[in-house]
């Protein structure tokens, strides 16, 4: 389908069973009826088991080890895996870094 805003082609992605159309031009997202509710439901399932913010709190699941020079919110899993740059916001440079030398 075409983006209603900028008319570039939209690509379909499946995230945990939810179909999402994203525009390849303006990056806008199109949701079908009920998909927003499905996403909200998934979001609450994700955030419920997350450990409380203090990073020193014992983890329910062992996070993979990471070097001490790494990002505090990155490798240490202190926020239940949230907060990395690849999460909900795909930066331009993020994509570029993963696909180039």
């Amino acid at each position: 389908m075409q983006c209603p805003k900028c008319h570039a082609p939209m690509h379909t992605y499946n995230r945990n069973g939810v179909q999402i159309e994203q525009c390849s031009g303006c990056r806008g997202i199109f949701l079908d009826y009920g998909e927003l509710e499905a996403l909200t439901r998934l979001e609450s399932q994700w955030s419920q088991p997350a450990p409380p913010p203090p990073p020193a709190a014992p983890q329910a699941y062992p996070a993979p080890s990471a070097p001490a020079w790494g990002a505090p919110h990155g490798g240490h899993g202190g926020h239940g895996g949230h907060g990395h740059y690849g999460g909900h916001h795909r930066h331009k440079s993020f994509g570029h870094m993963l696909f180039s030398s």
Partner: protein
Amino acid sequence: MTADTGTDAGADTPARSLLAALAAEARAAAHPRTPATACACASSPLADREDATVVRHAGTVAKAHAADTDPAALAHRVATAARLPGVLLPPLAPAPAPLHGRLVTLWPYGRPVDPDDPDAAPWEAAATLLARLHRTPVPAGLPAMRGPAKAARALGRLRSALRGTPHAAARPVLAAWGTLPAWARAAAPMPGPPALCHGDLHLGQLVRHPAPDGPWKLIDVDDLGAGVPAWDLARPAAWYACGLIPPDEWTRFLAAYRQAGGPAVPADGDPWPALDTAARALTVQTAALAVTKALTANRPLDEVEQAVVDACARMPSVPPQGPRPPRPVPGLPD
């Protein structure tokens, strides 16, 4: 038809004539029995960088390698790809051929990872391919893996860019580079028993062949060679350490590599002593390229680039984790 290279049709620059000649090579390989005038397919440039120009025509890809490519080394690397078709995309032609002063290789087209969907990255396949590559005996005469040399080149570019304009973010990057051991800066030979390494792993180096749904293969043999296999794991390791990929993606990658018997890290326990130096080096390389780009474009670093520079700033205060002693090979006397 004339080659549709997507470049300015008016100017017959060397770059344009190379693109046109590459497109002709790819077309001739794609339809060897069809005259050029009878072909209706378009040729599309896949990459046009300083170090490589790549053109696709139908199911064939022609690559012009960097002008300073060592012909004997490239021939060895292409021959290695031909011998490992289950791991590396096999070339269409057995040897590189000269064209417009560059060496050209021909490859079948494979479907890459969608750059707009890094979540779909085939972490398990990438790790398994690397483990199989690393377990392959190094072919006789194959040159060294070029990872550290490319890191050194990235730092060279940063230093050149800084001559015109200073940049505050460059200082931690240069300082972190200075703390790396000589081998990671390409100033000394790599340590340890050499393994067959890819040398430049990132998500653009994986394609499915035959397209679109064939098995994943590694592409781009320009940096292939003998060296420290941890280098090939170090880019995902650096992305994880800097918060660019989430812990579960790193865990999947590492677990699949271990599952496939990859020798770069111990089979269990903490992998970081084996990965630390290479992951630092690739973080510094990434930061150097990011600062260079920001300098050239006269723009500030974005959040992700700043995160990589910040990791460099923390490195000097964290003692390096030394490489583990070589693992004894079962069945051989110590």
